[in-house]
């Protein structure tokens, strides 16, 4: 009797949990829609440039000669270069690499980001993995981001991924560091205001445009590098790129951004 109801019970439970992710997404959209009532929520894919017109004008100028262009071109060449066994990235990724909207995904009990998937592909085909901060990794992911432009983020959070999602969410809301900030303090509570001259952007849209060329870095860098910088800024420990907590944080931020337009690579100050 009970066994017969188990699938039904399971369905109810899992749909309730799925609804939680959806409820979080709705809550984020509603929060920023209310905070910035004159800005469509989708506009936050441009980060701080959705909020500050003077900065936006400078940024559009920078985008006229996109500083990430070489990275995309070099990445395309790398993407097309066959592996030693004759296969290539095309054997792992569909549509010429226009797959970023499906990442991160939850596979084999862990969050697989784009960078991790690139390395999994290489190792599967007898190649060495790339360092996550290597130029080659940034070039490949620049190309993949570019090929994936204009797709809508389309990741799903299956039942068995919920604990990872929850941990990512918890990371987002936890105070850390000597200065005692959570991500939400800067990117929700005081979003849009200025820390000295820095205008704080909305978290909704934080994941749509990576990797990104930053003037401050003078090169293209990853989302996790930015996480590390935001952690460091408040005196908290910066974690290694692609460490489990950062992958889960990215998973959370991407799940709540489902439906947003991919617009990477981008440039930022």
């Amino acid at each position, binding site marked *: 009797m009970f066994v017969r109801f188990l699938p039904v019970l399971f369905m109810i439970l899992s749909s309730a949990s799925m609804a939680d992710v959806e409820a979080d997404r709705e809550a984020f959209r509603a929060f920023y829609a209310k905070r910035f009532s004159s800005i469509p929520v989708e506009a936050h894919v441009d980060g701080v440039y959705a909020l500050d017109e003077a900065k936006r004008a400078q940024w559009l100028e920078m985008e006229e000669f996109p500083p990430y262009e070489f990275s995309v071109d070099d990445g395309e060449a790398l993407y097309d270069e066959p592996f030693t066994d004759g296969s290539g990235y095309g054997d792992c990724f569909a549509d010429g690499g226009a797959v970023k909207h499906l990442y991160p995904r939850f596979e084999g009990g862990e969050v697989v980001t784009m960078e991790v998937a690139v390395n999994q592909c290489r190792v599967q085909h007898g190649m060495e993995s790339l360092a996550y901060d290597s130029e080659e990794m940034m070039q490949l992911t620049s190309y993949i981001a570019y090929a994936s432009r204009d797709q809508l983020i389309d990741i799903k959070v299956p039942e068995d991924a919920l604990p990872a999602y929850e941990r990512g969410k918890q990371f987002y809301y936890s105070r850390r560091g000597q200065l005692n900030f959570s991500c939400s303090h*800067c990117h929700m509570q005081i979003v849009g*205001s*200025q820390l000295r001259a820095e205008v704080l952007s909305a978290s909704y849209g934080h994941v749509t445009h990576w990797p990104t060329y930053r003037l401050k870095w003078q090169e293209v860098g990853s989302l996790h590098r930015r996480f590390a910088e935001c952690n460091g800024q408040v005196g908290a420990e910066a974690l290694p790129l692609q460490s489990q907590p950062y992958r889960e944080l990215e998973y959370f931020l991407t799940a709540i951004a489902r439906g947003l337009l991919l617009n990477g690579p981008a440039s930022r100050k």
Partner: protein
Amino acid sequence: MKKVLFLLAVVSPIVMADDINKGRELAFDRSRGNCLACHMMEGGEMPGNVAPPLIAMKTRFPERSVLREQVWDATIRNPESVMPPYGRHGVLTEEEIDQVVDFVHSL
């Protein structure tokens, strides 16, 4: 005894001015107080606008101890405060907090 009192009377305004100067330095220094990241303060350049401007402090904080508590740990009054707990997290020493508070109280 008389001599000591006399000395105090002469010395303490000087010490005060010195503390206020040190407090100002700490408050403006990006790697120490960095109060300007969030607060407008007279004489400070490029302030943020996260938090209320620090003006007319004696009128609004007649009790120095209330002001000191805010700097020592802002989450006592507002658990969700974004203001760093300078004392509780040891961002500034007790002496430095007193100097910052003296400076802020003078605004």
